[in-house]
């Protein structure tokens, strides 16, 4: 039933998998090991959940976490064993087929975004992110890049901040004061 993209086996067909059924892709074994270790760690943690007001029986807050992490651990063990038995796919490399430089760069960009979001604020962080990302991917002039990214950012900001009043971290931009200024202006114009 597996549907495989002939070029890259990358699972773009749907939300379901893009792995190879009879070969081990680069890094797959490591990923399976990582999942097993995570499962075991969570299982230990689940076992440590204490019911503050009663016994740790079938109806305690521990029951389901222990059951589900144990299932994870068993499934991860089977997956690891199966993966280890598969022959390696020699035609692929990790750096080219799994995590190419471009994807890695974006993971880095997102990590940077997450770090800067709170101290610097939503607007400057997003402006930098969009500009860098679009410039890198589209390789057009800076004027075009800035126009597109700032325009899009403004649209998103208007929808989320003004219409839906989602208050993203303001950081160094005095957003509330700016909005108040426009509000006063609008009121002044009406009055």
């Amino acid at each position: 039933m597996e549907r495989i993209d002939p070029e890259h086996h990358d699972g773009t067909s749907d939300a379901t998998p893009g792995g190879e059924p009879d070969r081990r892709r680069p890094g797959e074994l490591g990923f399976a090991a990582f999942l097993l270790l995570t499962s075991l760690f969570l299982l230990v943690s689940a076992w440590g959940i204490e019911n503050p007001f009663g016994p740790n029986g079938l109806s305690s807050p521990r029951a389901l976490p222990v059951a589900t992490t144990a299932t994870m651990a068993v499934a991860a063990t089977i997956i690891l064993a199966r993966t280890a038995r598969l022959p390696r796919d020699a035609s692929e490399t990790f750096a080219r087929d799994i995590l190419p430089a471009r994807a890695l760069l974006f993971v880095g960009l997102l990590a940077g975004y997450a770090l800067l979001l709170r101290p610097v604020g939503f607007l400057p962080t997003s402006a930098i992110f969009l500009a860098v990302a679009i410039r890198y991917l589209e390789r057009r002039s800076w004027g075009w890049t800035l126009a597109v990214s700032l325009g899009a950012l403004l649209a998103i900001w208007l929808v989320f901040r003004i219409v839906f009043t989602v208050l993203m971290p303001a950081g160094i931009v005095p957003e509330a004061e700016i909005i108040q200024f426009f509000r006063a202006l609008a009121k002044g114009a009406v009055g």
Partner: protein
Amino acid sequence: MEALSGLIVLFAQPQLLLLVGLGTFAGIYIGAIPGLSVTMAVSILISFTFSWDVLPAIALMIGIYMGGVYGGSRTAILLNIPGAPSAIATALDGYPMAKRGEAGVAIGVTTVMSFIGGFVGIAVLALAAPLVSDFALSFQPRDYMLLAILGILLVGSLSQGSLTKGIFAGALGIAIGSVGRDPLTFAERFTFDFQILEGGISFIAVMIGMFGVSEALIQMHHVDKRAMRQKIDRVVPSLATVRKHLPLSLQTSTIGVIVGALPGTGGDIAALMAYDHAKRVTRNPEPPFGEGAMEGLVAPETANNAAVGGAFIPMMTLGIPGDAVTAIMIGALFIHGLNPGPMLMIDKPDMFWFIVGCLVAANVFMLIFGLTGIRLFARIVEMPRGVLIPLILLLSIVGAYAVNNSIADVYWMLGFGVLGYFMRHYGYPLGPVILGVILSRLLDDNWRRAIISERGDLGLFFAGILSSPLSLALFASVILIFVSQTPLWTRAKARLFPNAQRNP
């Protein structure tokens, strides 16, 4: 007579009708953008419509609700990013169709089917609301638990490829769903003494990360390829197509109404259950499920729109919310001086019929806007990927933050995005993860309630299951589906019916 007066109010006042239309239109876009949710929109509207009369406020909210549930399918089909949790199953077959350039057909079928589903939901609401709400109320904790297990078994049909990997993903989802303070005892689970973990992980954040961010990262492999040109000239599906899928759509609508009417379950679970149902009853679809089967669109889209009417059933008859959106609407009715509860239908029957009228109007508007505004949406996909991908990422971030105004959710969203990226590469299905998160609380809380109700006695627990026809029916379906998914059954079947056609 009362029915008429309520309906007449709506259709006699063009501005009310206009508000329903406006709401539906806005709802489609709100639903399509991952991170803008109907729940959010409706709760904003409470403040926005505070000084209005109750009728226009409700008209606008219902429009947004109906449009929003439908709108989630747009991005699922065009970008493989479900705009709302109830559109997760839609992506499974909708996106493969868009990849072949058939987005227009996919959206057309989705729209018509959403209309049919929505209509079935409204019809049941209008004709049989008290009956269905009695049935929904009769669900005991053990029945909810069995329903959740039935839901968990969908892992089987959502995991193409390795079932073991699907089981792992489903269990991971359940574990993610149990992070934070347990709501029943306040015990800390998987919090590792971090304050930000105490509130748990928002499942919308997980969904946006797993589908939005991981899809954007996957697209990094294809930035240079030109976007597929979408054929959008023939959008309205032929009568033959609709007729062919009518039986299935009625079945899945029924699933939608009932799951929607149950307090505590909504369109997301309904859509996944309907998808599973379609997979079971459809023989040899062409193309197969997961590669663009029409049935894979029909089922979830009828079910999630039918669930809208379903969610209003307990709300109108008992004042009990059928899902998150109806919960907010009950609050809105309170604020506007009405008292939603069992007496509402007796005290103010015209309100009931007004809401039914709004739903009908919203459903029709949805059909109109759904079939006409496709060109604009298709343009979005044809945008240069170098612009589209960064925008998807930014929307994912804002959307994850907006769920609960929490930066922690942004971190989770990004983390699960990267995890989802690797899971896709190595053949782990993502659907079961979301399924697990959605069902985690339903399963956990009701399992514990069921056991506590029987004072911890497993014998009594099973005796309880056997003594109730509803529990027994659910239990039998669980066993049946479980057995039919195990390899043992396939082997037994092959031996018993050697000539039977293999059902993929």
